[in-house]
């Protein structure tokens, strides 16, 4: 296990803020989770095109079965956000992703997690694709003390 994180950066756009106080609208944090995980898959799974081929052929379905969000501080238009992605709880058919989002002052804005599972589009769970499993193992979090709120949903 390592404490390696997959990191992307994002500048907050005006259209991601709301009318009340100009702060980032809450659903954007979940959208940024999605952006982060997509780049993670594309960049770290060498056979990602092959995995997507199985998806398009309806042989492999990647399902988000769970999502948690903890909002700790606001972000604002123009902020530079760092999104750190780590993985964990890898089992045969599923694994978790953990997200830490920080502002330019290294203050944590948000902690989130999601659980992904795989099935065959017919309700039968299937193994995590092998290249993805290797990637998940290499970004697996070993120290949950880096999270202040996600610890509540870990044993």
């Amino acid at each position, binding site marked *: 296990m390592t404490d390696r994180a997959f990191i992307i950066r994002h500048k907050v756009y005006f259209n991601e803020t709301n009318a009340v106080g100009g702060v980032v609208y809450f659903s954007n944090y979940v959208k940024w989770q999605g952006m982060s995980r997509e780049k993670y898959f594309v960049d770290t799974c060498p056979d990602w095109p092959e995995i997507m081929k199985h998806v398009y052929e309806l042989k492999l379905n990647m399902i988000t079965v769970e999502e948690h969000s903890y909002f700790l501080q606001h972000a604002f238009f123009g902020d530079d956000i760092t999104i750190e992605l780590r993985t964990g709880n890898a089992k045969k058919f599923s694994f978790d992703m953990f997200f830490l989002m920080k502002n330019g002052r290294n203050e944590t804005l948000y902690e989130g997690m999601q659980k992904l599972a795989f099935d065959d589009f017919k309700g039968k*769970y299937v193994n995590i694709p092998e290249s993805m499993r290797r990637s998940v193992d290499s970004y697996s979090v070993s120290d949950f003390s880096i999270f202040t709120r996600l610890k509540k949903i870990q044993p």
Partner: protein
Amino acid sequence: MEAIADKVKQIIAKTLTIEADKVVDTAGLADDLGADSLDMAELGMALQEEFGVEIADEQLSQIRTVKDVVSAIQSAPKSA
């Protein structure tokens, strides 16, 4: 037999990401421990790998309590 039961309980706790002291014989996997269909599938695989047994999907679907899991492992045929 006790060793098997203890190992089964460890696997249940790890698979369901819950504290070990909640995994008591009478606890219902779904009703008390919150297991869903994904958890049950993961549990079945983890048990088969640990004990080298085969548990049919139909048998897995009949399991209700922690004690049922232990009984299933004790009576399951070894994998070929």
